[in-house]
């Protein structure tokens, strides 16, 4: 089922001034529910502007945004409801923590939805657990947590609203490799369990290669493609021209194939490359 649709979505900043710039140009998209989707594109490609349309922070200059088939701008009174269904977590969300305790901070969104105290409690505990925040952390000030924990508390606040679509803008920026891998695994588990759609904006091709089913690629304000992750990484040359790259392991496998070895397609993680190479090596000569 389509959860998020855009029709001819266009957005122009500072229209009518010398600084006029079209940041999103006629984007037609249809994203299904229960999808883990990576969003990639060079700086200034329009990804962030596009994301801000999905929960109505920006209003299209022309075209439409539909959430579960409904035009979000058809009835302005329902816009608040759209923000509960589409959650947006900005870069460095830990700067937006403000409550006295981590518990209250995570509960802020669900409370605004008018849920009962019991339901709020249930959701806060569930989300905190999913992100590895312990019960004693919940009673502490968010400012007493480490950087990675603060980031998780901020993300939990949006997850606890159980949005149909969760948008995360660079949730791993500044985390070390171990912290990064754990965060991505937790997000992936959340997505599987909630069967919701998660949009993961990232500059790391290795991360989106390992953790997403679909990729949305923006370039120069236009949608370059929206397709299965393996199919996108087959287009290495085109990605390079867009200022993007493929994971290191994908370039090695592509080059072996070019040199005439019978290497299967779509080997863009270490695990996949190993699993494909071992039988070939066992056979001896290829």
């Amino acid at each position, binding site marked *: 089922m389509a959860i998020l649709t855009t029709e001819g979505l266009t957005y122009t900043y500072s229209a009518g001034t010398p600084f006029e710039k079209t940041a999103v140009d006629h984007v037609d998209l249809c994203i299904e529910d229960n999808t883990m989707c990576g969003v990639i594109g*060079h700086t200034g490609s329009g990804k962030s502007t596009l994301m801000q349309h999905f929960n109505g922070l920006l209003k299209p200059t022309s075209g439409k945004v539909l959430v579960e088939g409904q035009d979000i701008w058809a009835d302005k009174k329902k816009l608040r409801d759209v923000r509960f269904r589409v959650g947006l977590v900005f870069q460095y969300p830990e700067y937006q923590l403000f409550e006295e305790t981590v518990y209250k901070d995570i509960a802020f969104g669900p409370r605004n939805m008018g849920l009962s105290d019991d339901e709020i409690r249930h959701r806060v505990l569930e989300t905190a657990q999913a992100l590895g925040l312990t019960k004693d952390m919940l009673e502490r000030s968010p400012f007493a947590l480490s950087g990675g924990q603060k980031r998780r508390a901020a993300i939990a606040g949006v997850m606890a609203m159980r949005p149909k679509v969760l948008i995360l803008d660079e949730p791993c920026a500044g*985390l*070390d490799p171990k912290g990064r891998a754990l965060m991505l695994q937790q997000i992936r588990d959340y997505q599987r369990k909630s069967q919701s759609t998660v949009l993961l904006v990232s500059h790391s091709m*290795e991360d989106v290669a390992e953790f997403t089913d679909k990729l949305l690629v923006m370039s120069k304000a236009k949608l370059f493609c929206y397709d299965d992750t393996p199919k996108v990484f087959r287009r290495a040359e085109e990605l390079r021209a867009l200022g993007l*790259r493929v994971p290191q392991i994908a370039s090695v496998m592509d080059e072996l194939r070019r040199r005439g070895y019978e290497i299967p397609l779509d080997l863009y993680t270490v695990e996949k*490359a*190993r699993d494909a*190479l071992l039988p070939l090596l066992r056979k001896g*000569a290829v």
Partner: protein
Amino acid sequence: MSDMIEAKHLVFRYPAEIGEDGKPAAQNEPILKDVSLSIERGSFTAILGHNGSGKSTFAKHINAILLPEEGTVLVDGMDTRDESKLFDIRQKAGMVFQNPDNQIVATIVEEDVAFAPENLGVEPQEIRRRVDEALHTVGMYEYRNHAPSQLSGGQKQRVAIAGVIAMQPDCIVLDEPTAMLDPQGREEVIETIHRLNREQGITIVLITHYMEEAAQADRVVVIDGGKVVLDDVPAKVFSQVDRMKALGLDVPQVTELAWELRQAGYDISPEIITEDACLAALERLLQM
């Protein structure tokens, strides 16, 4: 000649927070416990470590933003605790930080690059010459009259680097300069600092979370728990895949693939850190 940077038994702790009663709370644990490290003139060193390991704290000692609690840090032979040498030290060792937006001060690119030499009291004609040269070096000369806000992240970081070069430093310390950049911006910045190292002999200290970037350095230093735990050429450091993962770090994908194949019993070097070396080794295995 002395080393560019020489840290001896460096200990540092951040000051305790002031509690609600107005008195300082219990003393913090030292973040740097005993760091001794010499960095050779003209070398390219990458420093790795997980969040909170102390690597950025160490970097801030190199140009006297932080001063040692115990031990010493010498920059080109000058003790960072000698206040009369502060300007000289900061001119010798420039710093570039993670967020390009936090380190650009002017509204025009060339004015931003001129900021440091102006403050050092350099003659106007000499400033003009240095600014033009620095912008040429980082490939941003055509943008000299642009507003920094119109640039991409990679371009902004190159302007920040130009601002440091205009001081004519002997050493540049970069603290995760590529963390916020897209892949192309990352390549631009890394190529630029390698060129500065190669062509002008500038000593580079690069702190990064990207293992592929560290693999291109002459030397990799790993800091953990406030101490140097690994210090060697990249191939030797990354060949210790288990150890690196236990330290909360990673290795380049090609190194991990080679390691996996080695675990499965194949004869492949554990010291593969580049795509080319990985390709050559796989070809050899596939032809056997």
